[in-house]
């Protein structure tokens, strides 16, 4: 396979940037751009899991940056191929320049996810782990990296397995009682069945609820700042972006043309996806209308609604409050530094968090951060708790949940237990899909382990 290379750290400003080169010719390619100072060995001569300190240079010999080269030998690397990782100090610009040299030395640009794909194809990781890894790659904050890691380490699986074990136990009891009608087994009690199903349902729901939070932490949430003209939207916007030194990315989506700006705020990532639009609207004041607010309110996952305390509330303000009535929103009582013509209790009547704010003095900034965490449900985000890192896991779990619901429904409406049992089996199958096992086997084994049956 061809040798590929890419910047494998998030393209953030500052910090260490890593260029990963993978393939048969990885060491040869790296050698062309790297000059070791700490060793006389070439990268090709070095053993796996060893590092050399030196610098990267252009073909002309021009020194580009200090660098540590880490050598991995197949199959003992992430991709299962020979891998060299060049850790450089400089920022994005320099890193890109080094990468160009690496390409010039014979490597080809890696396609999105190609390292993981190779790792997968080289049997280094299975699909579930690949998904967890994919999550790491796209993780945009520390918390999400930890969450993705713990998925890989099996925190999630332990929870899923625990739910599954209880369902398998239920099913095995029903199946043993059915398949061995002549053995004097305990008759499954409907009340007990129901109790255990309700428990399983609650655990599935709890696990599913973490999914949204994970998604917010890993992928960010579309956030709209809405309000009448001149209430201070752009100041707040600038405050959020400017105060945060780490404007995380300007990712040009591979499948989308939209440019989105993501910023860390609290422990979450806010995707201020229509920044340009908002700013533009600010310039052409007259264009901001209720209709536009409505449209934005619809698509946003979080709304920051801004109100000017120094001017009387108008028709547009009340229309906005009406529009966001059923949305996840925070109300900002702005310009608290000026003398107020109305009190925040008017806003408080709308049942949403109200933040007394002064964009000018950054008063209330911390409270806003906390309010965002609360609203998004990330305040209690525990990166070590079982988290659903990927869509597939969510799909399987949702399916299991609906099967458990089915079983409960069958039980409640007085259906025979064969129907209940089939629904439980389907739930087990849905959960086992994550590990590639099958319900019939798992249940059969359980029967013979736990029930004295047979002639």
């Amino acid at each position, binding site marked *: 396979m061809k040798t590929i290379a890419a910047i494998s750290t998030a393209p953030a400003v500052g910090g260490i940037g890593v260029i990963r080169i993978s393939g048969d010719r990885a060491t040869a390619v790296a050698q062309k751009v790297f000059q070791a100072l700490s060793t006389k060995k070439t990268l090709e001569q070095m053993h796996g899991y060893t590092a050399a300190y030196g610098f990267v240079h252009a073909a002309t010999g021009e020194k580009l940056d200090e660098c540590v080269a880490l050598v991995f030998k197949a199959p003992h690397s992430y991709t299962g191929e020979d891998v060299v990782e060049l850790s450089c100090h400089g920022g994005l610009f320099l890193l890109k320049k080094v990468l160009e040299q690496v390409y010039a030395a014979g490597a080809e640009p890696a396609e999105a996810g190609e390292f993981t794909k190779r790792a*997968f*194809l080289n*049997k280094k990781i*299975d*699909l579930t782990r*690949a998904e967890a890894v994919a999550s790491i790659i796209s993780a945009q904050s520390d918390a999400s990296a930890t969450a993705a890691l713990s998925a890989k380490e099996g925190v999630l699986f332990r929870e899923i397995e625990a739910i599954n074990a209880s369902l398998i136990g239920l*099913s095995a009891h029903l*199946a043993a*009682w*059915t*398949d*061995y*009608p*002549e*053995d*004097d087994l305990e008759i499954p009690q409907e009340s007990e069945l129901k109790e255990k199903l309700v428990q399983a349902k609650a655990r599935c729901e709890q696990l599913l609820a973490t999914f949204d939070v994970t998604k917010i932490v890993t992928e960010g949430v579309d956030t709209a700042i809405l309000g009448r003209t001149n209430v201070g939207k752009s100041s707040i916007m600038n405050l959020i972006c400017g105060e945060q030194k780490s404007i995380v990315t300007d990712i040009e989506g591979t499948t989308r043309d939209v440019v989105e700006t993501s910023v860390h705020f609290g422990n979450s990532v806010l995707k201020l996806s229509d920044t340009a639009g908002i700013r533009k609207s600010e310039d052409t004041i007259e264009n901001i209308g209720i209709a536009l607010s409505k449209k934005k309110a619809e698509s946003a996952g979080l709304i920051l609604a801004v109100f000017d305390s120094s001017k009387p509330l108008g028709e547009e303000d009340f229309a906005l409050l009406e529009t966001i009535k059923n949305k996840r929103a925070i109300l900002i009582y702005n310009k608290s530094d000026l003398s107020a013509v109305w009190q925040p209790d008017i806003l408080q009547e709308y049942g949403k968090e109200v933040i007394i704010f002064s964009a000018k003095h950054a008063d209330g900034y911390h409270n806003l951060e906390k309010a965002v965490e609360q609203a998004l449900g990330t305040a209690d985000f525990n990166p070590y708790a079982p988290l659903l890192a990927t869509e597939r896991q969510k799909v399987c779990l949702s399916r299991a949940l609906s099967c458990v619901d089915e079983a409960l429904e*069958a039980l409640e*409406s*007085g*259906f*025979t*237990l*064969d*129907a209940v*049992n*089939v629904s439980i*089996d*389907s739930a087990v*199958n849905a959960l086992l*899909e994550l590990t*590639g*096992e*099958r*319900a*019939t*086997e798992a*249940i*059969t084994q359980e*029967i*013979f382990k736990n029930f*004295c*049956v*047979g*002639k």
Partner: protein
Amino acid sequence: MEYFAKHYDIAVIGAGHAGIEAALAAARLGCSTAVFTINLDWVGNMPCNPSIGGTSKGHLVREIDALGGEMGIAADANLLQSRMLNLGKGPAVHSLRAQIDRKDYSRYMKHVLETQENLEIMQAEIIDLYREEKTWYLKTKLEALYSATCVILATGTFLSGRIYVGDVSYESGPDGMFPAKELGVAIRKLGLPMRRFKTGTPSRVNRRSLDFSKMEEQKGDSELVNFSFAAQNKIENKVSCYITYTNETTKKIILDNLDRSPMYSGKIEGKGPRYCPSIEDKIVRFSEKQRHQIFIEPCGLDTEEIYLQGLSSSLPEDVQADFIHSIPGLEHAQVMRTAYAIEYDCVDPLALKASLEFLDYEGLFGAGQFNGSSGYEEAAAQGLVAGINAAHKILGKEPFILDRAGSYIGTLIDDLVTKGCTDPYRMMTSRSEYRLILRQDNADARLTPTGHALGLISEERYLAFLQKQSLIEQERKRLENTSVPLSDEVNAILVSHETSPLKKGCKLIELMKRPSLNYKILAPVDPTRPELPKEVFEQVEISVKYEGYIQRQYAQIKEMRRLEKKLIPPETNYEAITGLRLEAAEKLTKIRPHNVGQASRISGVTPADVSVLLIHLAKSEN
């Protein structure tokens, strides 16, 4: 001196439940067929329970019947008592179980074989089996050499059989018959992946020595259902069974003598069935259980022999007598046959295709216990499929493969050839993910058109089947179209069955959907109901009540059959497929699944491997 005797299209070794169905199917499909048995007096013997059916096994018998096999008709013809098990647990798990007169059954089956066109049955022990050119040769003990294009191995527990009772062990087939010792050597020489399994059977005692007053009587059902959909034999209950229990004394006797069991002293290497534990197994593994149930089952009308279900053992004869005598009602039981464990050779079924032909031995098929299963019904089911496929080979037709979604037979075979088995395989309803559809009551709807297309179901029977189906359809339509007007009478009925009263009139079908209602309850508000056979009402009621579940299962089946349709070329080199994990490549190379669906069910093949396989197939198609 060896002499050449005759050539057949198909030779079947063994005339047990697998051999019978295999031979009959082959002969009925027009192939010249021979059946070889070690003892002609024990064709279709039941060396263990004198019964046919039971949970999921009853399903198998009805499916065999729906496809045109013999077991169901023969069971009806020789029935002593019948019960539908699991009533009240839902239609998916209703299962027929019948006590059978075992001698009569054997005589009956022998006669069926004797009178079948294209079929020759003979008493001869096959001692050698080999292939030259494209022909199989079978040599008998009396040195006759037969040849056949296809051979079906249905050797049951005879193959290199060895019996164990306590310290005593000797080479033997079941029920005191000769073992097939030399054939065992010949088959190992062929290179088939053989292994040892074991099974066991309890003692038989004389009825006259039992005290039934200390036991619970178990009568047959008052309304009986035939195994056969043709229902040509009238069936009735002729005997009762009884139930008694082991106690602390039984337990103590067994535990005190455990060191004398060949199982516990490690003399037996064969793997025993998990679901058919000996009494000593049950007592050791489930020591917290106070008592174990024993069923007292008559073996026939013209014998006093009684079978003690639940007391299978390989403890020494004196210990057996002691623990039997500790059980209420059996205090003075006179033991007529001692319980024994039997160890035998069988094949790893992963070496088989879904057609039950061996992957690497063209024209050689396996069926029944030889394939690692257990049970008369499982054996008969495989015999039928092996017989049909051997015939199809002769006739140049495509292999006949039943899938998991269509039958328990398909599930059984798919499990065997895809997952293999580490102990004798028993069918169970929990093994079928589609069991709300694969019911015993609709086996005819599922399989009789197939049986007819195969040529195993007569025109007459097929017409009767079609008529039943049309009555079912009409009756369902009638329920859909018949209105029930709002009335005090209907609401009184609904309320008395704890279901909500009507607010306005509705269609009859809406009421039938409610779990607590049925045809009988609704009779007073259904004056236009026609006279129909009860099977027709049953089908309509189940299909209406369980419609939601049935539809869901059909949706799953549709999804499952998507992968089932993606065939894998037999010559596929899995090791050359990039991205396939080593374990998966090894398993796939061994099992050689015929389609991606089967591949996806192999343990150790992950969804990721399936994706890789699909990508590979898509690539090689282009």
